[in-house]
């Protein structure tokens, strides 16, 4: 059972790390701020989410697991709202009046 859990953890964390890679590459290589923003949110949602999922399998107890999920949800909420705000300042025409 522990072996299966460990295997799932490794799988999920690797997938999460891949999305972090994708997000960072996007941040560095995409041509304009708005497309970079799109790449960034992948790291936020999926990268952190998959890593949290992987760590959930190792978590000791319900409270620890809930805290991990809570961290992810917070990052999700903040990331989504901040992206909207950043996009507004990064619009080609500047922020709406």
């Amino acid at each position, binding site marked *: 059972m522990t072996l299966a859990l460990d295997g799932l953890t490794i799988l999920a964390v690797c997938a999460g790390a891949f999305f972090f890679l994708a997000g960072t590459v996007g941040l560095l290589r995409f041509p304009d701020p708005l497309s970079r923003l799109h790449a960034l949110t992948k790291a936020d949602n999926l990268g952190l989410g998959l890593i949290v999922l992987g760590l959930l399998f190792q978590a000791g107890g319900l409270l620890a697991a809930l805290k991990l999920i809570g961290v992810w949800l*917070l990052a999700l*909420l*903040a990331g989504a*709202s*901040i992206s*909207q*705000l950043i996009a*507004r300042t990064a619009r080609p025409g500047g922020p709406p009046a």
Partner: protein
Amino acid sequence: MVFDIGLAVLVLGVAVWTTAARDAFAAVVGFVAYGLLLALVWVRIAAPDVALTEAAIGGGVTGVLLLGAGTRLRAIEATAPAGEKPGSGLQLAAGMLCVFVTGGLAAIVLLLPEPAPTLAPLAAAHLAGTGLDNPVTAVLMAYRAIDTLLETVVLALALIGIWSLAPDGVWGGLPGPRHHIDSDGVLTFLVQLLAPVGILVGIHIFWIGSVAPGGEFQGATILAAMWLLAMMAGLVEAPPVSRRWLRLVLVIGPLTFLAIGLAGFGMSGAFLAYPEAYAKLLILTIEVPVTLSIAATLALLVAGPPERAQQR
């Protein structure tokens, strides 16, 4: 090992870049990045209490404070004559001073005898007498409570210093610029969801400080950040600094601390001495007002000097 080296190189790189950055905004972003990375370092050397404080104050609140200062400086810099920039001699002297201080600190750490002198076993041995389970909180609130008392007083003095920067016409007025409510509602949505969660997290971090890493400074910083968020979103108006209830909240922490400290003369024969049976209760009685005071003080420190007159 690879992790440690990578982290150290990263921290140094960000520090160098922050000092070399050309405009204030870029430097502040670098400074916040530096604070976040330092929190990682503290966790790596198994000092989670310091990591909590670094992430909260070093990474968050100080960054926003510097941002506000940079914004105010920009207005001043536009009118300052160009010849007032510091000369290269002064910059060189500042650099040399930093190098000497860093070299001195590094020498002290590297030349420590093996094993390094420490009071940690002594502190851990007397933990039961304080009623706490977290040795860091025991040091802050019991063994060296006088330092914590003086810190709260210093914070209050800093706030008075910032308030004294207000122009005559708006003395006692509202701190900071007016923030308009976001027309699209994104910021409003974020703060309405985030602030209650943040307040709960702040109270949680404060409460578990007696048994696990945490404590009043970290919890207070989170509460301050949530109040500032609500102010920045335009959902809450900053209170005029002349309000009595505000000033009461600001001083209740240091005053309670001082009162219990003086009561220590009567109870156990020394300033800030707690009788063993009541130690935990007294520490809690100190911690709650101190958390409120520090939260209010930090939030007002970041909000800045009064800029708008209050409406009568």
